[in-house]
């Protein structure tokens, strides 16, 4: 069923009794051309674009739990492309362009809201760094605006401009950045893929990757063996575990990233703001809750929950940036399992095993890349060659030295 004003009116008049499930809860077949492991945002987007852009539909997406149960439902919903290195910005800008027409493309309301992402700076050195970043963004076809203190004040008069230690000097604004309704992204891609013949299979955990003579032949799952011509892994924080089933060791550690929501408030923050003197970022959801977060906890974790020191650190950042936040009560917080790569950038590439492809290493920034990641991974799976927007995201870049170290931190995944 195509969603439109007509379908809404028709359903309203018939008491909303005719809505159908949005995707088929498929049972696994014996064989597929392509099996995608991981029914999160990236896996579902990959299947969607494989079907829509590359005309393939003998595809299964295998999810060990229910779709969208992982990071696509656990993030802070921000989209942006304010990166520095060309190898990264090409992908994120490609992704942002896909976000801009996504709802029309997959006929689903994902509440894409380009409300602007503002990165504040608090020193001359930081201003220079952001000016450089803004120039890199412009050179790569993204949008960027350097605001001075008055420019920021017009947008956000309630910020703590004259804090003794970190006065706000200005900010780098990307107006095309914003937020998206994250669950709807998973649902929209699942619906679009399912409509085009993709089997979205839930409660189906991959327990083995079958390899014969250096070539993938299929996967073993909790619901039986499935033969496959190609297998694509898009399992975020579980990447190391799943890749180990094929005997691969990855340049990735799994860490925990926490996010927080306050009680619902009247509209106060129109866009997304990041604090430049600590790690804190905040936006307000359409329901009114302040959605905010900061650093990863900083140690390996598969627990999907964090510890108190980071809660304290994030709240301190919030108080330093906008003291009025201290009046709001925190409603809930949660942790997600993030795949921190050794240089802070993702990997979308073939592996040494024929027919096995990897999409991993998203660190804590995978959500904004969802459509772009799906599109370029679909291209790689369909054509066996990298998409022009993802040529730098190679698996072997750590061996060759062509790393994409956006933060300049070296091989320290807990610092990226």
């Amino acid at each position, binding site marked *: 069923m195509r969603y439109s004003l007509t379908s809404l009116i028709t359903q309203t008049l018939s008491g909303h009794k005719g809505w159908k499930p949005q995707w088929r809860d498929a049972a696994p077949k014996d064989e597929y051309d392509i099996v995608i492991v991981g029914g999160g945002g990236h896996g579902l987007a990959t299947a969607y674009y494989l079907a829509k852009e590359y005309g393939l539909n003998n595809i299964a997406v295998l999810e060990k739990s229910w779709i969208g149960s992982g990071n696509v439902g656990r993030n802070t919903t921000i989209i942006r492309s304010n990166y520095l290195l060309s190898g990264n910005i090409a992908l994120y800008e490609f992704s942002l362009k896909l976000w801009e027409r996504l709802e029309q493309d997959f006929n689903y309301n994902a509440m894409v809201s380009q409300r602007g992402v503002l990165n504040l700076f608090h020193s001359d050195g930081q201003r220079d760094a952001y000016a450089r970043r803004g120039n890199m963004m412009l050179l790569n076809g993204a949008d960027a605006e350097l605001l001075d203190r008055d420019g920021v004040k017009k947008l956000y008069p309630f910020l703590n401009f004259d804090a003794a230690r970190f006065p706000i000097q200005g900010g780098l604004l990307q107006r095309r950045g914003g937020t998206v309704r994250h669950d709807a992204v998973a649902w929209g891609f699942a619906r679009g893929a399912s409509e085009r013949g993709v089997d979205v299979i839930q409660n189906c955990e991959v327990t083995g990757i079958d390899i014969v003579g250096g070539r993938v032949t299929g996967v073993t799952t909790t619901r039986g063996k499935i033969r496959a011509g190609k297998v694509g892994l898009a399992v975020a924080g579980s990447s190391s575990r799943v890749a180990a089933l094929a005997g691969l*060791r*990855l*340049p990735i550690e799994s860490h925990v990233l926490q996010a927080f929501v306050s009680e619902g408030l009247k509209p106060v923050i129109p866009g997304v703001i990041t604090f430049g003197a600590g790690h804190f970022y905040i936006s307000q959801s359409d329901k009114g809750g302040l959605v905010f977060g900061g650093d990863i906890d*900083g140690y390996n*974790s598969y*627990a999907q929950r964090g*510890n108190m020191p980071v809660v304290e650190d994030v709240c301190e950042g919030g108080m330093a940036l906008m003291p009025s936040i201290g009046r709001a009560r925190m409603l809930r917080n949660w942790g997600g399992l993030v795949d921190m790569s050794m240089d802070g950038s993702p990997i979308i590439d073939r592996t040494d095993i024929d027919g096995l492809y990897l999409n991993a290493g998203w660190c804590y920034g995978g959500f904004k890349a969802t459509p772009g990641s799906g599109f370029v991974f679909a291209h790689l799976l369909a054509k066996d060659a990298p998409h022009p927007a993802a040529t730098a995201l190679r698996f072997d870049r750590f*061996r060759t030295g062509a790393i994409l170290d956006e933060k300049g931190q070296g*091989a320290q995944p*807990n610092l990226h």
Partner: protein
Amino acid sequence: MRIPCPFCGPRDITEFAYHGDATLTRPAPGDAAMHDYVYLRDNPTGVHREHWYHSAGCHAWLTVTRNVSTHEIVGAEMAHKEAS
């Protein structure tokens, strides 16, 4: 989390800096295995051994045994004892 520092006793996690996987062995310079040592990790679930530095305490390097799936800390010992 609290780490039982052998020198200082149980101390809060905020006193420590994390350095990661303690199961790796540094290869000889120029060895082809250097790439694996610097970049590749087993990244296991369950009990893992890792290096923590008591930066706001006795400045000792510790080898901590910790369950990364539950955050339970099983034990900690001086890293140099293990190395010697």
